[in-house]
């Protein structure tokens, strides 16, 4: 068998040249008369090493990176196909500290397997959760997920089991599973990595969800900005169908599940679940007034379980290994693991899946390696554009839902965006308001008008016009938006604004304390 070389098809790796590296390896090998099989895997999430090329030697994979096409002749000269020493070698991939220290329960296969190869997936515990679910009654599956303590990883952190129970209890001619893959938060890419690197785990999670709540149809609402994830998902769905995991009478169970991908159209608001449902129905993505909850009256008026990609992709391991196994990870009410995404100004950005509870400092420095620019880190935005900005004095906060809520922040979808000391926090606060104005669906006034007025107020504060009065008005406006908006967009835009004001007043023209 020819030696296997892994070159990611992950779009992050592609953005750094992985496609030409994959092609280059095939060409160089042909030139040298060497047999080689290039496998296109997902990314391990070590983005500072991408394109990361791995060579399989027995049971071990040896990592080389970042590899560019001009490195290929020297890699072949160094016999990298036999794991030869080279300046770009990092030794066995599994022993790279960044990876070795992680607890990958949701993402163990991302970067490891061929994402659209069902057999590869099955060799790595794939479909083990589904096989167990096939022998369980719906309420047993729901109880297993409830007992695991899994909470919605999209950001709202609502207990998944509770949501599923509500859907299960509804009597309806049709129910749906709607996967929210509209990963719009800056600083987040775990959904994308899963869909590009291990889409079968999402598909398996959706099938199990369907069995649990009695839904026979699923939709993945995928953002338009993810064309590579789209292609990989379609390939994976076709492969799953061919292997008998989708369609009618799945694996002789007399249960059915059909799955379809629908592509969004560049609206951040469609990550809000009711707006996503409107969009799935082919309408403007305007937020719906709740109640009724989507679990009662969701897609096309039917009971619908709306879950994020990470939540659904975590379901297979919970079923395969049991609720207790998953629940044993984590702290307090935050059970299990969270795939944290390190982004922005960090030396080593990437995916770090850990049990809940590590400090922000540990992630920023031990994993992230500090700033990419070499300057001191000054502010970190956790949880996307609607998350609070945290100053250095709060870097010891543990990453769990309650600890962050305790300091007026939120964990959201687990994105961490770091800024060095060149950041102007008044500009970031203004950006938060502008972004809200740009993305507001327009249905409620605090969000639609408040965001534009908020940006204007911050402009005046920056210019020093009636500073005190405008600051008071801004705080008052934030109150109105927070409590008067229909959904999280208007309701949470005040988080980045107020945290910037609170922690970085000097950027808003306040006299410096020293």
């Amino acid at each position, binding site marked *: 068998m020819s030696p296997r070389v892994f070159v990611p098809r992950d779009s992050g790796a592609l953005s*750094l040249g992985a496609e030409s590296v994959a092609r280059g390896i095939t060409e160089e090998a042909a030139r040298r008369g060497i047999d080689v099989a290039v496998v296109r895997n997902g990314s391990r999430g070590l983005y500072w090493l991408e394109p990361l090329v791995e060579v399989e030697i027995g049971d071990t994979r040896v990592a080389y990176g970042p590899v560019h096409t001009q490195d290929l002749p020297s890699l072949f000269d160094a016999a990298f196909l036999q794991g030869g020493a080279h300046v770009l070698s990092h030794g066995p991939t599994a022993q790279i500290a960044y990876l070795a220290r992680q607890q990958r329960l949701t993402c163990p296969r991302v970067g490891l397997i061929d994402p659209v190869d069902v057999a590869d997936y099955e060799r790595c515990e794939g479909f083990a959760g589904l096989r167990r679910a096939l022998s369980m009654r719906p309420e047993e599956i729901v109880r297993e997920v409830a007992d695991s303590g899994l909470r919605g990883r999209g950001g709202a952190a609502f207990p998944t089991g509770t949501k599923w129970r509500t859907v299960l209890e509804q009597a309806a001619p049709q129910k749906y599973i709607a996967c929210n893959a509209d990963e719009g938060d800056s600083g987040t890419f775990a959904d994308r990595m899963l869909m590009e690197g291990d889409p079968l785990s999402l598909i398996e999670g959706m099938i199990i969800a369907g069995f649990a709540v009695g839904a026979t149809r699923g939709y993945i609402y995928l953002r338009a900005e993810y064309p590579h994830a789209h292609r990989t998902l379609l390939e994976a769905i076709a492969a799953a169908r061919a292997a008998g995991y989708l369609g009618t009478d799945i694996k002789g169970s007399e249960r059915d599940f059909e799955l379809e991908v629908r592509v969004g159209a*560049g609206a951040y608001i469609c990550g809000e679940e009711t707006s996503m449902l409107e969009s799935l129905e082919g309408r403007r993505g305007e937020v719906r007034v709740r109640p009724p909850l989507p679990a009662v009256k969701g897609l096309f008026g039917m009971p619908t379980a709306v879950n994020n990609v990470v939540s659904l992709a975590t379901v297979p391991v919970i079923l395969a290994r049991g609720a207790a196994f998953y629940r044993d990870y984590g702290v307090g009410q935050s059970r299990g693991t969270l795939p944290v995404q390190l982004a922005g100004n960090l030396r080593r950005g990437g995916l770090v899946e850990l049990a809940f509870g590590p400090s922000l400092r540990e992630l920023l420095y031990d994993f992230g390696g500090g700033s990419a620019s070499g300057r001191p880190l000054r502010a970190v935005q956790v949880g996307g554009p609607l998350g609070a900005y945290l100053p250095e004095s709060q870097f010891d906060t543990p990453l769990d839902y309650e600890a962050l809520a305790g300091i007026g922040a939120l964990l959201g979808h687990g994105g961490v965006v770091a800024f060095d000391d060149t950041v102007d926090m008044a500009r970031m606060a203004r950006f938060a308001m502008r972004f809200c104005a740009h993305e507001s669906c327009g249905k409620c006034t605090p969000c639609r008008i408040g965001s534009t007025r908020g940006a204007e107020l911050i402009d005046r504060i920056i210019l020093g016009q009636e500073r005190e009065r405008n600051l008071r008005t801004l705080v008052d406006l934030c109150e109105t938006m927070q409590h008067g908006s229909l959904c999280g967009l208007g309701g949470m835009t005040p988080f980045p604004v107020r945290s910037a004001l609170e922690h970085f007043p000097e950027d808003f023209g306040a006299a410096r304390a020293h």
Partner: protein
Amino acid sequence: MTAHDDTMRERIDSIVAAHAARPGPLLEVLHEVQRDFGHVPPAAIPQIARGLNLSRAEVHGVVTFYHHFRSTPPGRHRLQICRAESCQAMQGDALAAHAERRLGVRFGETTSDGGCTLEAVYCLGNCACSPAIFIDDTPHGRVTPERLDELLGDFVAAAD
């Protein structure tokens, strides 16, 4: 009525027919129209509305709600630059300003030779490799102004 108009009508009819029976088909139809024509021609809206049993206002409302749908033809190439927080943390604003200068257009505009449309996008999901861009369907990460010039060099003449 030109032959071109007839071709467009036929094509849109077939797109609408292919999707009409599916639940909530409008976005799917608009995506396919835009894939074929580069934009959603305003003249197509009444036809799409009739085909899907919607009002023209509903179709127009959807086309204008979503940033992705355009009502005018784009340039031959599309440069999308992420303007969101992670890319801002890595000099994305400087890259954006450089792109505007280099192309001689503002965001949302197309160069006068029709070569390139410059679009702002809010997150490409490549935040560990900021600043991130797409040129047509190809992603590029950690893009400096110099790198952008190299990438654009192939098809964009300098504006000045």
